[in-house]
């Protein structure tokens, strides 16, 4: 492989592989992208040979073991640009639900021999460990945002990724608001755009898989959800899924769990 092309690596930590699969799912763009970069390390695709440094590292998954906390330092040192891909890497993922519980109890009910299972008490985003140059949201990430990120990287410009909410994508798509028209609870007002308002387009409320938008007013949405008839423990659960440990969602769920803001 020629060495003048920028080398790209894909790394996995605690995750489901869905975000890195999104790269292989770019069937129409994959061979073209592969022509522009030297895909150097991508274990799932069988690429393990090149060692050294990487112009761009795409990092999937959260940090949940002591080994991984060390490995992410090595990845950072070897990477000129480091981009996290998805809710696990950006916010800790669904596995960050342990952060609200006791991991020893989790371990003892899931595994017959918990003594063989190494884990930290928390699942934390990559940014809690090393400097991150860009974070892509979503569980999973959007193909369009991934392709935009890679092409911006190749052209040395900033990727054009908006931090607005799912609500604005609903308007663009011409969706009727599921909350206003149908009374369906929806996290769209506080959730980061990127999915093109997928769930409301199918008459489902958003469950926040893209994590918090750049500016949110979660306490106000909580008031609206309560007015719509949701019980507090339901509100806590809906805020605690794939982005449970993202600051805005975590603060909101902790406030509701503590009974704050209730009548």
């Amino acid at each position, binding site marked *: 492989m020629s060495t003048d092309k920028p080398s790209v690596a894909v790394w996995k930590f*605690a*995750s*489901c*592989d*869905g*975000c*890195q*699969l*999104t790269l*292989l*799912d770019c*069937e*129409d763009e994959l*061979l073209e992208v*592969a022509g522009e970069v030297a*895909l150097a390390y991508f*274990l*799932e*695709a*069988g*690429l393990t*040979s090149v060692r050294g440094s990487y112009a761009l590292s795409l990092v999937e998954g959260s940090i*949940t*073991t002591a080994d991984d906390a060390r490995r992410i330092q090595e990845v950072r040192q070897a990477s000129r640009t480091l981009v996290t891909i998805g809710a696990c890497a950006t916010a800790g*993922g*669904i*596995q960050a639900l*342990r952060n609200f*519980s006791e991991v020893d*109890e*989790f*371990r003892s*009910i*899931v*595994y017959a021999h918990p003594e063989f*299972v190494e884990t930290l008490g928390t*699942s934390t985003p990559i940014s809690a460990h090393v400097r991150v140059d860009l974070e892509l949201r979503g*569980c*999973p990430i959007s193909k369009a945002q991934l392709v935009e990120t890679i092409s911006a990287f190749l052209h040395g410009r900033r990727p054009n990724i908006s931090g607005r909410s799912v609500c604005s994508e609903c308007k663009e798509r011409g969706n009727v608001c599921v909350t206003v028209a149908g009374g*369906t*609870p*929806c*996290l769209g007002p506080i959730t980061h755009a990127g*999915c093109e308002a*997928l*769930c409301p*387009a*199918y*008459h*489902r*409320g*958003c469950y*926040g898989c893209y994590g918090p938008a750049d500016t949110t007013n979660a306490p106000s949405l909580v008031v609206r*959800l309560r007015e719509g008839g*949701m019980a507090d423990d*339901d*509100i806590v*659960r*809906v805020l605690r899924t*794939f982005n449970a440990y993202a600051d805005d969602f975590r603060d909101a769920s902790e406030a509701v769990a503590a009974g704050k803001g209730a009548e």
Partner: protein
Amino acid sequence: MTHRSPASRTLEVKALARVEGEGAMFVEIRDGAVHDVQLRIYEPPRFFEAFLRGRSYTEPPDITARICGICPVAYQMSAVQAIEAACGITVDGALRDLRLLLYFGEWIESHALHVYMLHAPDFLGYESAIALAADHRPIVERGLALKKTGNDLVDVIGGRAVHPRQCARRWLLPGADQARAAAPVREPPAGA
């Protein structure tokens, strides 16, 4: 990989490639017989079984999908069927057909990935599908087209290729409302 003599050697694969999940393998052969095999799964645990407790019956399909991004439909369907079994609901007709179609989409996508992108390069002596494409581009393009067909099917029926979203309440749990009427279960939260 380390070789000592043909009859006695050790094989060590530190990272198994081309699989979802992470593992290492160690095989020791002594005098022509396998003496020791160790498979080490160092994929970090994520504890789905633990955090599914206390969730509403509408939530598991979306949560279990995240066990694996390559076969999310398998996990969604397992959760849906477990909940339906618990509620005594059977699903047939067009709904069952749609579920099968969704599943077929996943199979096509996942098998095309497996055959063309992960295994073919091994059998043909290439490092990866991308290296294979340099010499046999039409074949890799055919694999990508097949894979895309599977993804398109999941996309059309489920809303997106990875972690399809239209599976839980809209039409995969049609009996959920009867079940709620019959048994005192918790109300579904937002997004259900």
